[in-house]
Every structure is written in C-alpha cells, then in structure tokens.
C-alpha cells in the first residue's frame, strides 16, 4: 500500500506501525512517530494499524535553539 513517510511517497507491505518502521530500516533507532498528525507512543506501535494513504512522520533528536 502507498503511504507518505516524512512527506515522501513510500510503498510498504506491513500493516502495523512497528513492522512498517522495521521495513523502512529504522530498526531500534531512537525515533518518535505520528500518524496523520496524531502522536503514536512507542508502546502502541505494535498494535497501531497503518492504512493506505496514511501520513507517517518519523522524527529524531536534533539541534535546536
């Protein structure tokens, strides 16, 4: 199915967020996630479904002022 990952189109086969993250190569990376502008806590990734057209945001620590 087609989803958006950080604004770019991606084709994924997994249907749960944790599996999608593995499929996209994040593995055990220190990231936080949101689907369709709503935060998804790390503890809910294994049960959170990912559906066609979803907008997934994946962020990590960065420099800030």
């Amino acid at each position, binding site marked *: 199915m087609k989803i958006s990952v950080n604004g770019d189109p991606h084709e994924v086969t997994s249907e749960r967020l944790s599996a999608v993250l593995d499929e996209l190569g994040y593995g055990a990376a220190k990231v*936080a996630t949101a689907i369709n502008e709503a935060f998804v806590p790390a503890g809910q990734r294994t049960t959170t479904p990912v559906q066609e057209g979803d907008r997934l945001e994946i962020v990590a620590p960065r420099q800030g002022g």
Partner: protein
Amino acid sequence: MVEFYGTAVSSRLMLGTAQYPSPAILADAFQRSKAGIATVSVRREAGSDQAGADFWALIKELGVAILPNTAGCHSAREAITTAQMARELFDTDWIKLEVIGHTDTLQPDPFALVEAAKALCADGFKVFPYTTEDLILADKLLDAGCEVLMPWGAPIGSGLGLSNIYGLRTLRAQFPDVPMVVDAGLGLPSQAAHAMELGFDAVLLNTAVAKAGDPAAMAEGFAGAVQAGRLAFEADPMEPRDMAAPSTPVIGKAFLS
C-alpha cells in the same frame, strides 16, 4: 541557583545547540559557557540516517538538563504533537513551547500559544512558553498552568538585544515571583548583562554564540556577563540622576585659586 518547576539549576545561562560549525565546537562552547540547560529539537529522520543517535550521544555527554522545543510550529495542534514526540524522545516533561504567528519576525501567536499551553499543562508537561512582553498574555499563560515565562528580547536570531526595555521591566515588576528567562534576540554579552540587571532569572541564547567567529570564547563572554548582571541586580544598584554628584569629598579641598 535558580529553580524551574522545582528543579534547581546552577547556571543562569541557557544555551541552544544549533548552528555550530562542528560538534566539537558545540561541546567546547558548552564547557566554557557553564550553561546548565541545553535546548534541543526534533526533526525528520531518514531510515538509514544515524544523525539523531549521533546528536543524542553528544548531548548526553554535555551533562546538562535538556529543554526540547517546538520550534517552527505554527499551530497549537502541531506544537502539541511535537511536544508529545519530544517528551518521548528526550524523556523529559519540560517543553519550550514555541507557536509562531509571523514568519518574518517569528513573533509568537498569542492565541495559539495559550491554547497549546493549556493542553500541554493539562497533560502533565512543564511548559516554558516563548512569549512577548505582553502583560495580558503573560497572565493567560500563568492561568493556563505555566510556572515559567520566556519573553523575547528581540526577534529570534536578530541579535538586536532588548528592543522593549520598558515592556520587559514592566513584565518583571508585574510578576515578581515568576521565574522569567529572556529568550531570543540577544547578540552581545552586554545585552545579557542588561537583562540580568533588570531582574530576569536567566537568559537563553543560541545564535549569538554559535555564529560568533569564536563560539567558545563568546560563550565564556556570555557566562561572565550573566554572572555580572545577576550580581549587580542582587547588589541593589544606585539610582541614576540627571546632574553630577562629585564622588570625591568637597570638604577639605585645598584653596588654590
């Protein structure tokens, strides 16, 4: 010592982590600044990119408290989601809440700021709102549950210093017991000293250090200025006057004319 939400911090200088020429210079600047709090952010990460992990390792080595921000957010909803992601990533309920309302000045949107502050405080966040010197907005933010205020000195990254001294002085006087940090717009140590002389509890800056020719030296300069300004405030400065008042005793002067 200054306290934010019950946490004592040894330094009154808070330093941002962006725009340094290299990670080594960032670390050197922090060491010489003796800053007690570092501001950080969250940004998109590509799957194969380890930038987040590398930066996080560098920050942990600094040994300072972490204050994540919601920089770049233009709506309450965006800021709230960003804050939730930051809380998980950095394992802290502190959040420097920025909700920008004007692109050129990066002036906060006061209405969205209060809306986001209410939601985040209710959700257990300890909110450090980036605000203006507006008294009514300050009151609304305190009502929302904020226990710290961070008025701007001038637009972010401008280096203009304190552009509304009357407004800042009035804000400080109106809420004497609220910890306040002058955040943004400082370009020189003398401006930081001035903010501290006005009675602000701390200053937060980034660009002035990171974009200096020698960031580490500038960081040390700001550290000295913050300390000097605070000492001056605590020392109860003299009242200025319009006419001269000789400091050397007049009595006893030799009559030589």
